[in-house]
């Protein structure tokens, strides 16, 4: 591990430094304009498909494949109602299920992964490098071959058709992605802080709680956002472990709308998919602000 030789972090962090006093240079207005145009064009490209999906949620089934514009020819609000009530249970139930699972997954990941990351980054234990490699290895096998033995394990302990297989593993740090992410973050925190705390008599637990965790906030927020969304979208595990419609998540419910031998109810699917975006988008919007408040370190100069 490289020893850090820098001065402690400054009190202000953030993105690009504020520009020094603007100097009048020819073409100085061109760059921001170009950048802005590119950004807006990029943003348009980002959301065009979504706008199309929203538009299609108001269409008739046969119009979905024939109209490609952004303005639907009619506004069938019934699609939203039919979609909401069209399955065995109301979508409110599916939303609650998805929400519960994803929230628990977030809590699990935040605690277990940060602890494991701290262990890998800051605690010297025997064969640490070996276990780190094993951790990375667990990332590399696809879920499709593992899911069958896992199903057997869960079935033996009676957890099938419950939320447990989708939540408990997160409390056991199964998401090596986030362990690795947090390790990278922690390695960016100078060890002088740890040493200073140790001199003051802190043990690992104190260092973890008082120093590392607060400094890791961006990593934690990122973990929260991604865990929530990925666990929400993880339809394959949901297909395998959840059988009863009463326990269905939103993605599973959406997939019920598809059938090759009947009207697939695409507009209803789009309507529900659009609605499904709302909570996850909101969560992102709310949390991303914390990404930008930056890290306020308390005076650790010198």
């Amino acid at each position, binding site marked *: 591990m490289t020893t850090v030789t820098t001065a402690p972090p400054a009190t202000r962090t953030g993105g690009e430094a504020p520009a020094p006093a603007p100097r009048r240079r020819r073409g100085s207005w061109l760059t921001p304009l170009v950048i802005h145009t590119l950004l807006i064009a990029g943003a348009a490209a980002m959301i065009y498909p979504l706008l199309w999906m929203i538009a299609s949620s108001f269409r008739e*089934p*046969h119009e*979905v*494949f*024939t109209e490609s514009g952004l303005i639907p020819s009619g506004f069938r609000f019934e699609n939203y109602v039919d979609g909401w009530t*069209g*399955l*065995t249970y109301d979508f409110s139930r599916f939303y609650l299920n998805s929400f519960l699972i994803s929230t628990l997954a977030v809590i699990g990941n935040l605690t277990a992964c940060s602890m494991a990351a701290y262990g890998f980054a800051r605690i010297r234990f*025997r064969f640490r490098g070996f276990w780190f490699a094993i951790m990375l290895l667990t990332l590399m096998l696809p879920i499709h071959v593992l*899911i*069958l*033995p896992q*199903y*057997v*394990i869960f*079935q*033996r302990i*009676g957890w*099938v058709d419950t939320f447990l297989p989708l939540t408990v593993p997160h409390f056991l740090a199964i998401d090596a992605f986030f362990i690795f992410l947090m390790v990278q973050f922690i390695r960016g925190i100078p060890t002088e802080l740890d040493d200073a705390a140790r001199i003051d008599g802190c043990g690992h637990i104190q260092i973890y709680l008082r120093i590392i965790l607060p400094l890791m906030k961006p990593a934690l927020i990122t973990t929260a956002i991604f865990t929530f969304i990925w666990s929400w979208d993880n339809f*394959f595990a949901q*297909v*395998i472990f959840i*059988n*009863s*419609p009463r326990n269905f998540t939103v993605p*599973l419910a959406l*997939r*019920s*709308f*598809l*059938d*090759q*031998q*009947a*009207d*697939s*109810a*695409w507009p*209803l699917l789009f309507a529900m998919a659009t609605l499904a975006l709302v909570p996850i988008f909101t969560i992102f919007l709310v949390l991303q602000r914390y990404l930008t408040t930056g890290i306020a370190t308390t005076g650790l100069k010198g």
Partner: protein
Amino acid sequence: MTKISRRRMLGGAVLLGAGATGLPILAACGDDNGGGDGGGGGGSLRFAWWGNPDRDARTNSAVRLWSEKTGRNVGTEPANWQDYWDAMTTQLAGNNPPDLMQQDYQYLKEYVENGALLALDDYVPDPLNTSQIPEDTVNSGRFDGALYAISMGYNTFALVSNQGVLADAGEEQPDDTITWSEFFDLAVRIGEKTPDGVFGSENAMNAMEPFECWLRQRGKELYTADGQLAFDAADVEEWFNYWMEMIEAGGCPSTEADAESTGALEDRGVPKRTGAFDFHWSNVITAFYDLTEDPIGVSMYPQGDSPGSPNGQYYKASMYLAVPSGASDPEAAVDLMSALIFDPEIASELGFERGIPAAGPVREALEPDLSESERLSLEFVERLEGQVGPVPPPPPGAHGQIYEQFTYYSEEAGFGNLSVADAAAQFYDEANRLLEA
């Protein structure tokens, strides 16, 4: 001290891991009844099927009727086609199957051969009154003489037409006697007389169902009774060439345009008004009907060019019900099965959605209240009674993969990566290889 405790921890963990490894092997040996979890104290049954919102709603109300009658709870587990088989595969391998499941002809043989399904002969004729179902259809669920699955409904090949597009091209609805060559000319004419992007027929080059019909008209089949190919590479080549020529002549969309399709019903030529004919099954007639404002016509698939050839059609069971071997309560499962297939009151909840109901009394009960599209569908199927041929032997387990190869090689030929002769030959070799494995 550190060393010992760590070793002990590792040792214990390895044991745990080894134990966990052993579990799937034990489970796969099927010596344990994991059904207790599913059944739950003599209470709920588990019934799984694939479907869509409409079918799910109908099935749920049918099941509810049965529950009220018998006082037994049923846990229903619908899913879409793809997810259903993923879930079933996992549950059967993990020894946690539902009590009643839907089955499909292409998988039956494999499930039966591996002992995954329960034989139902003990339950005939009470409560399974199979005499109400045409004998051929009942026998399609028989293997080595024992009955393993009962069909819920049946359907047959249907050539569906969009009569609005036909009218635009100034053509008439063909009757059941049109041959493949006449169909070719018709499709090309329609393609010429309609705007760009509208064709006479869909591109069915990669579809094995019309291919099967075409083979049957020549006295062949897809598979023999002992699971070998019952056709030659030359047949495949002729079939591919037929469609390549039609693409060339403008009678159907190109391979590229066809590859773009999602396969969803709304994305097909007839509902979109981009094609006059679609090759499909009779049970989607109602769906097509709902998807377009143009009138719909139905006829048999095009007939063989040699006079006197059989029409190639047969009554196919649309889907079956079967009881997995590991079911926790087979008696109740069979009772539910018989209600869904034979009990007029309960089965009529299901309607025509799964095909023409298999049992005569159920059909009669539904007859008065049919919608126009359902009547169309029923009339078509009944019109063919007595004319249809025997049910082909059940496909071997490798059929799914062979179908994938068929699609793949038809695309290779269609995109010009391989010559038609090569594509046909390579497909044929692949298919044989898969059957041997």
